[in-house]
C-alpha cells in the first residue's frame, strides 16, 4: 500500500552472500534463492525474511549490523554488487529499497573489506578503529560546566553551515570500503574540518590533526590517492573538500608543530 506502485509484482532474486564463522576461519560465498520480495521492502527487510526462512529450516541466519534503520546510526554496512551501501547514491543500506532491483536479479552481498576492519562473522566487521581515531583527538577539550553562554560565540552562518556539512558523517565506513587503498581519509577529514572551522575548535587544531592522522596510520588504513571513490559512495555526501582541508591542516601543523607528546 505504501509507494506509488501498489500493484508492483513480487520479485524472485538470487543472493550470493559472504558467510564466515568467525575472525579466524576462512569465509565463502553462499547462494540463496529468495522469492516473494516486495518492491516496497527495504534491503534489510528482505534479509530479515531470508533469515526467518533460514531459522525455520534450522540453519543459522546471516549476521549483519543494523540498528536505527533510518540512515543515521551508521551501523548498517554491506557491499552490494560491488558497491558500498548498494546502487543508490546518498543512501545507506537500510534506506535502500528493493524497487531498485529487478525480478530475476542476482545480488552479491559482502562485508566491508579492509585490513583495518576485520570480519567478526558473516557481514559483521570490527570498526572500532574509527572510535580509536576519534579518541586520539576528535574533540574539543571542555569539561562539563564553566563554559560561556552559547550566544557569546557568534559563528557566521556560512561557516556554521560548512562545519555542519562535515559533521553529518555517520561513521559507517563506506568510504574505507569504497577505496581501493582502504583509506580512512574522508572519515578523518570530516571531523578535522568540522572542528577546525569552528572558533571553539581552533585552539587545538594542530595537535588534533597530527594525533588523528597518526592514529589512522597505526590502525592500518591505506594512503589516499585522490580517486574520490569515498565521496562518490558516501551515503551522507561528505565532500572531498574536507580531504583538502585535512591536508592543509596537517601541513601547517607539521610545519609549526606544537605536539609535545
Amino acid at each position, binding site marked *: *500500500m*505504501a*509507494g506509488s506502485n*501498489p500493484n508492483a509484482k513480487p520479485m524472485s532474486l538470487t543472493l550470493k552472500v559472504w558467510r564466515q564463522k*568467525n575472525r579466524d576461519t576462512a569465509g565463502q560465498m553462499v547462494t540463496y534463492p529468495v522469492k516473494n520480495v*516486495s518492491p*516496497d*521492502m*527495504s534491503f*534489510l*527487510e528482505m534479509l*530479515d525474511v531470508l533469515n*526467518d526462512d*533460514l*531459522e*525455520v529450516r*534450522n*540453519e*543459522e541466519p546471516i549476521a549483519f549490523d*543494523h*540498528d*536505527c*534503520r*533510518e540512515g*543515521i*546510526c*551508521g551501523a548498517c554496512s554491506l557491499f552490494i554488487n560491488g558497491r558500498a551501501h548498494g546502487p543508490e547514491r546518498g*543512501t545507506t543500506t537500510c*534506506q535502500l*529499497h528493493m*524497487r531498485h532491483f529487478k525480478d530475476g536479479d542476482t545480488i552479491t552481498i559482502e562485508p566491508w573489506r579492509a585490513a583495518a576492519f576485520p570480519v567478526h*562473522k558473516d557481514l*559483521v566487521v*570490527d*570498526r*572500532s578503529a*574509527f*572510535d580509536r581515531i576519534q*579518541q586520539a*583527538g*576528535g*574533540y574539543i577539550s*571542555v*569539561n*562539563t*560546566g564553566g*563554559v*560561556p553562554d*552559547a550566544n557569546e560565540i*557568534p*559563528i*557566521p552562518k556560512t561557516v*556554521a553551515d560548512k562545519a*555542519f556539512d562535515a*559533521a*553529518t558523517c555517520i561513521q559507517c565506513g563506506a568510504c574505507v570500503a569504497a577505496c581501493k587503498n582502504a583509506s580512512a581519509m574522508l572519515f578523518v577529514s570530516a571531523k578535522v574540518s*568540522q*572542528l577546525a572551522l*569552528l572558533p571553539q*575548535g581552533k585552539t587545538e587544531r594542530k595537535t588534533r590533526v597530527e594525533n588523528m592522522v597518526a592514529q589512522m596510520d597505526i590502525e592500518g588504513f591505506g594512503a589516499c590517492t585522490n580517486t574520490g571513490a569515498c565521496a562518490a559512495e558516501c551515503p551522507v555526501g561528505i565532500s572531498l573538500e574536507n580531504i583538502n582541508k585535512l591536508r592543509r591542516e596537517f601541513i601547517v601543523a607539521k610545519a609549526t608543530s606544537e605536539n609535545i607528546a
Partner: protein
Amino acid sequence: MILDSKIPEGPVAEKWDKHKFNVKLVNPANKRKYDIIVVGTGLAGASAAATLGELGYNVKAFCFQDSPRRAHSIAAQGGINAAKNYQNDGDSVFRLFYDTVKGGDYRSREANVYRLAQVSVNIIDQCVAQGVPFARDYGGLLANRSFGGAQVSRTFYARGQTGQQLLLGAYSALNRQVAYGKVKVFPRTEMLDLVMVDGKARGIVVRNLITGKIESHSAHAVILATGGYGNVFFLSTNAMGSNATAAWRAYKKGALFANPCFTQIHPTCIPVSGEYQSKLTLMSESLRNDGRVWVPKTVEMAQRLRKGEITVNDIAEADRDYYLERKYPAFGNLVPRDVASRNAKLVCDEGRGVGSSGLAVYLDFADAIKREGQAAIAAKYGNLFEMYAKITDENPYEKPMRIYPAVHYTMGGLWVDYNLMTTVPGLYAAGECNFSDHGANRLGASALMQGLADGYFVIPYTIGDYLAKMPYDKVPTDHPAFREAEQAVIDKNNQLLAIQGTRTVDSFHKELGLIMWEHCGMARNEEGLRFAKQEIRRVREAFWRDVKVTGVGEELNQTLERANRVADFIELAELMVDDAQSRKESCGGHFREESQTPENEALRDDENYAYVAAWEFTGVGNEPRLHREDLEFENVKLTQRSYK
C-alpha cells in the same frame, strides 16, 4: 516499602540550589578510589560517563552497539528545548517548567521538572562549547523553532539531525576521557543482570556479543541509561536493538518500575506498508510548524480516494477537514503529541482515513510552499522530505505526506527519587530509562533535554552524595554474588538454546506487538486489557515451550540476543497492561475509553489518580505489588488540559 522521593524542602525555584549545597561531596583526591558503571551510551549515558570521568571517577561504559555513537539518541530529529528566551517571546524557566508539567497532563513531579527547566540553559552552552553545530541566523547567533505544546520558540536544532549532533558532542567528550584513561568503553557488550551485595548495587553481568562470553564487572555504583521499551510493540520508531532487558532485570532485582503504561504514540510517522515491515520511521514533529493535517470531510470521499477513483488533488479546499485547526484554534497543528495522535485515530475510525488501508492522514505542505517557496521549505526540512521519498517513493513537494501515529517513546521507566536513584541503593537511572520528568505525555524536543540534563548536570552531583558515604573497598568479581548471577545468566541462555521449538523469536515478538497495539495502544478499555493479559500469558507460555534459537551461546549469535530481549518484553508487556488496568482515568498518552469528556478528550481523575504508580516484582506470573507516590502540585494549578 515506603517511597521516599527525597524532594528537598523550600520553594520550587530554590530546591536544586539548596540541594546542591546540602549534598555530600567526594574530595578530588578520593574520587579516583570509586568505580562507576554506566550502561548505555546515548545522550544520558555518554554525558554521564564523560562528566564523571572529568570529575575523576573511574568509569566503565557499556553499549550493545559496535560504537557508543550509534545509541538510538542519534536518531532524534527535531530539536532540544531550553529556556534561553533568545527570541524575546516571553519564555522563562518557569514557563518551560509549566508547559512541561501541563504537557505531561499533571502526572510528573514538580521538583524534578523545575530542575530540568533550570539546567536546560546550561545544556545549550555546553553543547555549543563542544562544537555542536546548531542552526544559526545570519547574525551568527543561534536560531530557534517552535514545537508542539508550546507557544514560544525555544527549540534549538541542527537541521533534521539534532540527536546525532548532540550525541556526537557527548561522544566526543566521552572519547576525550577514554584518551585520558578515565573511562573504559565496552562496545558490543550487553548487560544481562544486576549484581547486589549487602542490598546494594555493586556490579553487572554482561555478555560479550562477539565471543558470547559471560563476564562480570564490579563497581561502587551502577547507572542505567538504557533507553525506553517502545519495542514491546514490535513496530515502533525505536532502533531494532533498543530493548528493556537491563532495566527489566534490575526490576526483577528489586528496583520499582513506575507508570509502565505511559507510552507515547507519535502522530507523524510513515504508515505501515506490509507484513514484512521491521520498524516505523518518524517524521519530525517540526514538520507540523508548516504542514497542515487534514482528511476528507466525508467518509464517501475518503472511500473513493482509497479505491483510487480520485486523487488527493481532486479534493477541493472546501471538502478538506483540517481537523486540528478546527478543533484547537489556539494551538492548531501544534497540539501536543497525544492529542494529535488520538485525533488521527478518531478520524480514521470514522472511516475518513486515507491511503489504501485507510490508516493514514495527510500532512500537507502546499500552503507553506506557496507562501515561502520550495527552496525555503527544502532548507528547513530537506532531509526529512528525502527520507519520506526514499521510503514511500512519493514526492512530498507535490503530494501531501501520508502519516499515522506510531509508538515512539515511553514516559514510564524505573522509579527514581530526586537524586535519580532507584529503590535499589547505588542503582541510578537516567534519561528515557527513568520515569521522572514527562508525566503521562512528553513534549517534543524534551527527550534530548532530559537525557543531557540527567547526564551532564544531575547525576554527577547526586551520585557524590551516595559515594561519599561508601567505603572504598571493592567487591571482587569472584564474590559469590557475582558467581551466582553469572550462573543464572548462563542457565537462562542455555534454556533458550535448548528449547529447539518450531517458532522464530520474531514471530513471538510480532504476536506480542499486535496484542499490545490493539489493546494497550492509543486507546484502552477494561475488557481489552483483561483480554490482553490472558493473551500475553499465553504468548509467554508458548515462547518458553516452542521458541527456536539457532546457533550456540559462545559466539556472535544475534538470535540469542533477540530471544533474551523478547523474553523480557513479554514479561514487561504484562506489567504495562496491569498498570493500564489499575489506572482507570485517562491522562496524556494513557487514554481509557471509559474516562473521556463529551468532546472525546482525556478526562483525568485527580482525586483518585494523582500519583505515580510504582510496581514491585513478586515473581514471574505473580501479581506485582503497587506502591503509590502521591503527587503534590504547589506551583501549577491542575486544570483540564486545553489547547483550544
